[in-house]
């Protein structure tokens, strides 16, 4: 039981964090805060991947010394042949590196849009913007 709780605690916290981010995105009408929520949401997803990649007693997946290549030997578990060390799983790290970059790209475009929206409407509150558009719609028809 304790093993189960300790082994799954991270997931529960990460899920809570994800939902915090999602809640901010959905609930707030402020466009900048929405983007902050998006950032938190995405960062928590990154955490889900990274927590997955951890191996107990592991080290970062970087070899200290590069053994001579070209040998045919295959090693047992993920152990450095020279040092006998366990390494964590590198694949999720790579995926998340990519995802972080994608996240910041989205954020940059989103913020640029926010700046333009503020220039066009004088507000960054979703409700105010909807109201302004609604007034125009009523006036034109």
């Amino acid at each position, binding site marked *: 039981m304790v093993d189960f709780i300790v082994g799954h605690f991270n997931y529960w916290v990460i899920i809570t964090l994800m939902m915090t981010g999602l809640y901010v995105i959905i609930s707030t009408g402020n466009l900048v805060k929405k983007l902050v929520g998006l950032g938190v949401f995405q960062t928590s*997803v990154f955490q889900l991947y990274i927590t997955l990649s951890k191996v107990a007693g592991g080290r970062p997946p970087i070899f200290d010394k590069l053994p001579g290549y070209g040998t045919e030997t295959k090693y047992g578990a993920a152990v450095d042949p020279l040092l006998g060390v366990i390494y964590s799983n590198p694949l*999720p790290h790579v995926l998340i590196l990519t995802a972080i970059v994608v996240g910041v790209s989205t954020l940059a475009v*989103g913020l640029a849009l926010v700046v333009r929206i503020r220039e066009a409407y004088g507000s960054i509150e979703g409700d105010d913007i909807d109201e302004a558009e609604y007034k125009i719609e009523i006036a034109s028809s």
Partner: protein
Amino acid sequence: MNFIEMITNAGGGHLLANAPALVVAIPLIAGAVAVVLGHGKLAWVWSVLIALVTFGFSLILLQSVLGGETITYAMGNWPAPLGITYHIDALNALLISLVSAMALLALLYGWPMVEREIDPKKHAMFFGTFLLCVGGLIGVAIAGDAFNVFVFLEVSSISTYVLVAMGAQKNRQALTASFNYLILGTIGATFFVIGVGLLYMATGTLNMADISRILADSEGNRVVRAAFAFIVIGLGLKTAMFPLHTWLPNAYTFSPSMIGVFLASTATKVAFYILIRFLFSVFHAGASFETAMFDFVLAPMAMVAMIVCSVQASFQSDVRRLLAYSSVAQVGYMLLGLSLGTAAGLAAGLLHMFNHALMKGALFMAVGLAGLGLGITRVNELRGLGKTMPLVAAGLTVAGLSLIGVPLTAGFISKYYLVIAVLERGWWWAVVAIVVSSVLAIFYVGRMIEAMYLQNPPTPSAAHESDPPIQVRSPVLSMAALYVLVIGSVWFFFDPSLPKGLADTAAGLLIGGGGL
């Protein structure tokens, strides 16, 4: 290696063998080149050229999978689970050709619109972004690796947000439309990433074929089910599945005309394709959990979309928004086909996807041309278009009839097959939904046709004296692009063998054994 050898290598079958990589890489690299070019018209010519080359490569791919073969291409020559692979079969070869053909047509169509709607200083970057979007969409359609799908989904999505926002010069609402699209699209993409992460957690691999193989061996557990739900919702957002479609109407309405054409005929289709790929190839449609999801979630939602969004379309005053709501309704038809879970249903859904791309592309083109010539944005402003712009009005009418599903148009064929597939499953109530939705389509398309042919053109008022109201310029290339699609919408009624054959082959592959 000497130079001559390189040329011969590059010129021969080697180039064709690398077509899967090139069909994605060429638009992406060319997008960067377009930015460097700087000059607007030059960038346009370059983009047309690239779209042509891309279309050529996609035809090569289509040619080689016509018989039901599949091609697997290993990026960087790394074998499957380690490296990223591309996977091409009848299903996505059709889609790749569709995207590249629509890119070409949209570009041919779009120059006069872009010239008018976009700041000349931004033309080069605009076309660059457009090419990146094309590359991203093809990249999604061709990928055989779950995470690679995400990366290219984001390439296409981010460029789409930007392209939609470029409509701001016309109407500031493009900005909010783009922002809402960005928020919902990113939530969708993030849900998809969560799903992929859960799949990776359960299987330890990202290669779609490999995931499929491992899932087939093991009993699905709770992680896999959650992954399924997240992927369906994430891709549902991108496909504009019914309650998740709220970003679509504004994004289509306020984007620049050329972008509206391209998005309406490709973006949701690619998302729909990848949804099918995940539902049928990666997960296995036979599992009881999935069947329940199909019967009790997807099918009802599809029918609600078909009816509710058709009603909404009927009440729109803006032509493009009307078409956008109709698009959500049409996505409902495709999802209905998918949710049947049978080969016939899937084939009908795919066929409808193809036909809908043709007719919706044509409709948006016609509306864009009317907007260019006469500044039309509303349905009641269409009055008398049959006299002022007869060719555009004719194109609009034919495509509109195809949207209703009138015989002699391609829209009839796909609806016919859909009804047959639905009856095979015994879902008579779904037939009712199809009929109701089609009647509603008669209503909203009828409004446009009635305005165009039965009402008189507005007499030029004093305010518009300076504009030439009758002798509107209709750019030749744009008209040609429109008529390619219009003729296509009729042609595929008489000879639906190409899309029908591919859809059948694809459906057979998917239902048969995963198809990866």
